[in-house]
C-alpha cells in the first residue's frame, strides 16, 4: 500500500515516428501541456492536474513503443530501502545520477522479467502550471482537447509476467487487484496497484518481451469520455474500440492510437481498491466481458496490436 514506498506511476517515455504529429496528438488532442524540450529533441509534457514537472516524454525514433515507465517513490529514504530490496533479490539495478533528466533527482533503473525497463525516483521538481494550492481554482486556464487530468497507468505485454508480478508485489509492495486465469491455472493477465486505484500497472502474457499495449490517461467523467469520442471523430483519429466499459476495474474507456501506432486509452471511474480486498478473478471463458463489459467479446485488434 502506498503512502510509504511506491506512490504512483511517475512518467513514461514513448517513442514516436514523427514529433510534429505526436505533439499535435498529445498536446492538442489529449490536452497535455509541453513543459520542456531537451537538447536531444525529447519533449516533456504533463497533464493540467499533475503537480510534478512531467509525466510523458516523447522521443523521436524509427520504431514506436515504450522506452521506460517510472514510478515515484515517497522519499529518498524509501528509495534506498527499495534499492536494497531489489539488490537482495538479485535484480540488477543501475543508478542514474541526478541531473540526467530535467527536474528529476537520482533514478534507479532495472529491467523486469518481461523485458520492460522500469525506473524508480523520489525527487522531481514541481511545475508552476500544476494545481493551485491557495484558494485553488479548478485550473489556471480551462483544459484543452480531451481534458486529460493525469497520466494514469500502462498495460504492458511480455513473456514472464509471473516474474514481473512477483517483483512488483513482493519487492516493491504492489497488490494484485484482478487477474485473468486459464483453466490450467496459468495467469494470462494481472492488474497491480500501489495505491487505491484499481490498477497502476497491468501485465499480459505474450511471447515477445518488452511490448507496449497502451498508455492510459484519466478523464473526470463518462461525459468527458463522450467528449473525447467527439474529438476522435472530428479529427479522424484512429480508434480501436469504445466508448465502452471494462468488467475488470469497471472503468469507462476508449482505446485509440497515436500517430505512430502506440495505443492510448482515456479512462474514467473504476472502483477504489484497498490492500485488504480479495483478488477478483476472471476465467478465460469470461474474458470478453472482463475486458469489454458491454460488447462481451474481445476484438482481435485489441489482443494482437502492440508496439
Amino acid at each position, binding site marked *: 500500500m502506498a503512502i510509504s514506498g511506491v506512490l504512483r506511476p511517475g512518467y513514461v517515455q514513448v517513442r514516436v515516428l514523427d514529433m510534429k504529429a505526436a505533439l499535435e496528438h498529445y498536446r492538442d488532442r489529449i490536452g497535455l501541456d509541453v513543459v520542456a524540450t531537451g537538447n536531444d529533441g525529447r519533449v516533456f509534457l504533463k497533464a493540467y492536474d499533475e503537480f510534478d514537472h512531467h509525466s510523458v516524454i516523447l522521443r523521436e525514433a524509427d520504431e514506436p513503443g515504450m522506452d521506460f515507465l517510472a514510478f515515484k517513490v515517497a522519499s529518498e529514504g524509501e528509495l534506498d530501502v527499495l534499492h536494497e530490496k531489489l539488490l537482495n533479490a538479485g535484480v540488477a539495478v543501475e543508478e542514474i545520477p541526478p541531473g540526467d533528466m530535467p527536474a528529476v533527482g537520482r533514478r534507479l533503473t532495472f529491467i523486469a522479467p518481461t523485458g520492460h525497463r522500469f525506473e524508480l525516483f523520489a525527487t522531481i521538481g514541481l511545475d508552476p502550471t500544476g494545481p493551485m494550492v491557495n484558494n485553488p481554482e479548478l485550473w489556471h486556464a480551462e483544459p484543452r482537447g480531451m481534458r486529460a487530468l493525469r497520466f494514469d497507468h500502462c498495460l504492458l505485454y511480455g513473456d514472464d509476467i509471473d516474474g514481473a508480478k512477483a517483483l512488483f508485489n513482493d519487492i516493491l509492495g504492489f497488490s494484485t487487484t484482478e487477474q485473468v486465469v486459464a483453466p490450467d491455472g496459468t495467469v494470462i493477465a494481472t492488474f497491480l496497484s500501489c495505491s487505491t486505484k484499481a490498477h497502476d500497472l497491468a501485465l499480459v502474457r505474450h511471447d515477445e518481451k518488452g511490448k507496449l499495449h497502451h498508455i492510459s490517461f484519466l478523464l473526470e467523467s463518462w461525459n468527458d469520455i463522450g467528449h473525447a469520442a467527439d474529438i476522435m471523430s472530428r479529427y479522424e483519429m484512429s480508434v480501436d474500440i469504445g466508448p465502452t466499459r471494462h468488467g475488470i476495474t469497471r472503468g469507462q474507456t476508449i482505446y485509440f*492510437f497515436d500517430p505512430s501506432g502506440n495505443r492510448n486509452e482515456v479512462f474514467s471511474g473504476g472502483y477504489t481498491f484497498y490492500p485488504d480486498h480479495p483478488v477478483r478473478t476472471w476465467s478465460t471463458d469470461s474474458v470478453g466481458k472482463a475486458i469489454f463489459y458491454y460488447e462481451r467479446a474481445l476484438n482481435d485488434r485489441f489482443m494482437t496490436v502492440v*508496439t
Partner: protein
Amino acid sequence: MTSHHRIEIENCGTHFRCPENEGVLQAMERQGRRAIPVGCRNGGCGLCLVLVTAGDFKAGPMSRRHVPCGEPAGLALACRVYPQTDLRVRLATDEDRQWSKQQCPAGRDGR
C-alpha cells in the same frame, strides 16, 4: 482534384479505389472492404504489412521494426502507402514477416 487509383489485392481479387492522399488501408476500410488486416492504422504495429508487386507509391513514416532499411522493394505498411499509380498488392507472407523480424534488433533505450 485528387486522382484516384485502383488498388488490387492479389490474394483475394478484391479491388477498390484509393485517392493519392489517403492510405490504402484507410481507403479500404472506409469503403467497407476487408482484405488487409487493420491494426493501428498509423505505421506502428505491422499488422497491415504488404508487398506492393506493381505500381508506384509514396510511403509515410513506418516502424523500422516491420519495414527495416534495405527491405525487399515494395515491402510496406498498407496504412502508410499513398498510391501514385494503380497498385497491385499481396498480403505479407510468413517469410516476409520473418525477414523483417531478423533484420531489426530491438532499438530501444534512449534514456
